[in-house]
């Protein structure tokens, strides 16, 4: 019996795909005879889509596969652009640097974890690109990672979305006031405090930039002798926000705080603003449209704390009808696998068209992340990021069957082994039953505040 089991074990080792080894970053594929939901160019039935070198090179009937090109039969299936989630916290080893209310110097890329199985699970929901952000503990949080779900690569740098614009997290309301005001007894304790913290930091950054500009100017003069200003990584990043080189993604719920952050941005000449969550965005949709901000919302999540009681499932539709570029996000490793269901709710709540609903999880989040020239629709010249579904993706009966990133199949329902972990713990024990969620899954506020100081305390 023992020998028999060992043999099975050996066979299983061989069967596990060798995903960790060096892989080409881009691939070729011909997806044949599917119903193409291009999002930007309508629906094309019985159409082929050809990807070469990771890019869509042709869309049309009866395309021929080049030599050696993988052919995928999509007869009876639906082919859509890979889903984009503008708000996630997966693939991170830490989420919040909650010791300080202002931490834009933090780079989430430093915490990136390409081994996170949640990446593979998101692929199994047709997702190909995400923004994974700092949490909402701080009025000004860290810089996001915009990444492609190239699960299988061990190198965090290989997951980064090449050339994506920089983005930074801001957060208003109850989270920063609870963590810092209530938790650490420092500013901000109130919504006014949050505004003060943001305005102070931006003002300081403006002065910092001026100091360095002056110093750099003086240094050009011959024989100049003087001391450089103190280098400050935090203010360096905020100075880039002021220069318009970094987009603000602002966690916000209430209408008043949405108006507040838009006022702050106007005062500092900041134009690149995406409101995250914005449960009361529908109340100030014209004002948001007027500012030119974009909004990423939940389909129908609310009432998990006081500031999110006044909410509606019509939010996405109302914002869309007011001309606001709107997306639906997951903010969660479970919901990320069913963003197509989330988007479909807007057909009922607000009567969006199918293309409008699909845009909420494709081209619109792509615009919010500044990558719509590369992804978000099925168009010649764009990246070969494609999700294939058994039914129309907005149907409740649909099942994702295959997901391609840069023309490489990263999820295939037909070949979906039980154990897709890239690294395993060599001291793992199996005699302890139960599921242990990694810390990063609790929520975007984390739970690690006092953990360590309590480690050795008695009850």
């Amino acid at each position: 019996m023992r020998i028999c089991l060992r043999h099975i074990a050996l066979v299983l080792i061989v069967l596990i795909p060798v995903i960790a080894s060096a892989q080409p970053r881009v691939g070729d594929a011909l997806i044949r005879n599917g119903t193409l939901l291009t999002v930007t160019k309508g629906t094309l039935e019985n159409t082929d889509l050809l990807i070469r070198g990771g890019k869509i090179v042709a869309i049309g009937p009866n395309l021929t596969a080049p030599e050696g090109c993988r052919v995928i039969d999509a007869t009876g299936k639906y082919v859509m652009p890979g889903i984009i989630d503008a708000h996630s916290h997966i693939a991170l080893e830490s989420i919040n640097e909650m010791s300080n209310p202002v931490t834009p110097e933090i780079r989430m890329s430093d915490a990136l974890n390409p081994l996170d199985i949640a990446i593979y699970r998101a692929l199994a929901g047709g997702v190909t690109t995400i923004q994974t952000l700092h949490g909402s503990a701080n009025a000004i949080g860290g810089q996001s990672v915009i990444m492609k779900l190239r699960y299988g690569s061990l190198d965090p740098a290989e997951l980064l979305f090449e050339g994506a614009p920089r983005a930074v997290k801001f957060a208003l309301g109850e989270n920063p006031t609870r963590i810092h005001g209530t938790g650490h007894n420092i500013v901000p304790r109130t919504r006014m405090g949050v505004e003060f913290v943001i305005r102070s930091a931006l003002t300081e950054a403006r002065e910092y930039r001026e100091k360095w500009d002056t110093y750099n100017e003086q240094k050009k003069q011959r024989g100049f002798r003087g001391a450089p200003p103190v280098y400050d990584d935090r203010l360096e990043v905020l100075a880039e926000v002021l220069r318009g080189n970094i987009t603000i993604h602002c966690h916000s719920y209430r209408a008043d705080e949405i108006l507040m952050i838009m006022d702050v941005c106007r005062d500092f000449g900041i134009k690149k603003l995406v409101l995250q969550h914005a449960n009361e965005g529908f109340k100030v949709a014209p004002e948001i449209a007027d500012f030119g901000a974009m909004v990423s919302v939940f389909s129908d999540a609310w009432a998990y704390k006081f500031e999110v009681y006044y909410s509606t499932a019509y939010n996405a539709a109302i914002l869309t009808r007011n001309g606001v570029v709107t997306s639906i996000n997951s903010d969660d490793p479970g919901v990320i696998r069913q963003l197509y269901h989330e988007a479909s709710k807007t057909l009922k709540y607000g009567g969006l068209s199918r293309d409008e609903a699909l845009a909420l999880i494709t081209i619109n989040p792509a615009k919010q992340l500044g990558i719509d020239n590369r992804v978000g629709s099925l168009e010649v010249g764009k990246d070969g990021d494609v999700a294939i579904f058994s039914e129309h993706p907005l149907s409740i009966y649909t099942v994702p069957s295959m997901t391609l990133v840069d023309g490489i199949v990263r999820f295939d329902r037909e070949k979906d082994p039980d154990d897709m972990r890239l690294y395993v713990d060599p001291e793992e024990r199996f005699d302890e039953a139960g599921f242990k969620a990694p810390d990063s899954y609790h929520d975007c506020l984390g739970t690690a505040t006092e953990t360590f100081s309590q480690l050795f305390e008695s009850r």
Partner: protein
Amino acid sequence: MLRFVASRIISAVGALLVLTTTAAQERELAPVSDTYAIRNLTIIPAPGRRIEHGTIIIRNGLIDAVGENISIPPNAIILDGDSLYAYAAFIEGLSKTGVKSPDDDHGERVEDPGDPPLSKAGINPQRDVRDYLDPNDPMIKELRCAGFGASQVAPRGIFLPGSTAVILLGGETPDQMALRPHNACYSELTSNKTIYPSTVMAVLAKWRELYHQAELSRDYAALYATNASGLPRPETNRALEALYPVTLRQQPVLFRTAKMLDIQRVLSLQKELGFVLVLGDVSEGWDLIDKIKTSGASVFLSLNLPENPDEKKEPDDDDSLGNAELTALKARRSEFIQKMTTQAATFDSAGIKFGFSALDTKYSDLHKNLRNMVEAGLNPESALAALTINAADILGVADRLGTIEKGKIANVALFSKPMFDKDAKVMSIFVDGKLYTCTEKDGHKKKVSSPEGTWHLTADTPKEAVKLEVVLRRDPDKQYSGRITSTRMPEGIDLTNITFQGKTLKFMYDILLEGRPQDVIVEGEIEGKTFKGKITVGEYGNYPVEGIKDPER
């Protein structure tokens, strides 16, 4: 008692041992001569070389002569090495052997956790590990008797705890032991979990900022030094000043990077800033060979290997279950145990020069783990090179250590058998020309290690070194009982499930964390009066723990 007489021949290994024990412990007198002749040895002066029936002459702490037909100086203490094997004493690349925790006050609350004092944040690169080195720490003896004559020791603490020193594992004072102080700027991606920088991403952000600040302040200090007239006086800053040699590539940064992701984090930091990098304690590096090669980093591979779970019978280990899922999970686990065990061989065949570090390794496992690596394909000569000349080379002491040759420091380990033989033992070892014995089979036979008594343990958590006091008793009916106390739990907690088998002591207690009960398991090995093992705190993970027992009255 035996007396030392110049030129007197004391034959047989046993006599050799008695001789040193007598000298070192009973009379505490220096040997009558600092010249030794060890003859009739099998000498492995360097990997791949071998001298049968050779003699080593040690004089004034240095190796004076090595070879077959060496004339013995008249004042030498002659030791017969019949059947012994002499190797250059091993060199360990990263440990905290003999290093005490700094007396930082951890209890005091920081006013603004976002802007803590530098020392609290773990930004102490100006600290010198010699200030925390205890020459009498029993762990020094333990590492020495595993065949090691030198070690790079790092200060305890988080983030940037200070500079390392290459030390000889013998000597009366830290300065006497130090061979190369300030060898590297030591850093870990660890943090105080409640104050800035509290996460790995903040630690890296702060690293970059400190580096840029050090560059600017270094340049301005230089400008000011040439002509201060008319210039604002630069503030001194000990932390930044300690980083100047790093920014000038005059001092490497030694990072503790066990895990694959941490290694990559440090490699990209190095790529961005350009410092000279040494990776220490590497245990998951097999997929990063090319990246490490490109970076030019030196490497110390961890000597720690996962315990093979197949050696321990697990409750679910019942074959009759025939659970295919469990079998598959175990197969993957074995695959990764195998990857770790073959890591050194992988590095060796990729042509990367490496040494070994013992930071996370139980010293009693060092030889077993080395043997496992060799059995898994590591060329024994490469293993020996990693323990000797390669480590010496990476540490910049190859002119003084790493081989048995004339002119080098007399660090020589005498093994009972070839070192990779299963029951090979270190019988005695010369460090800095001084002879230390390592076996207990003499007239001063030690008592069998016992867990009873008062233990002072230190748990090395990422935040701080937590001091624990454990009192263990044994009832007349031979059941153990005990209690654990610390500054945070002065009233103490009763221990449960106390077991002591062979050398392994294990006990448990439970604490309440964030309202949820957590089991704490302490498990480790007792060697004489030292304890070394790990502490597992519920689902929070495990940390190294070690300590010593109060002397019995």
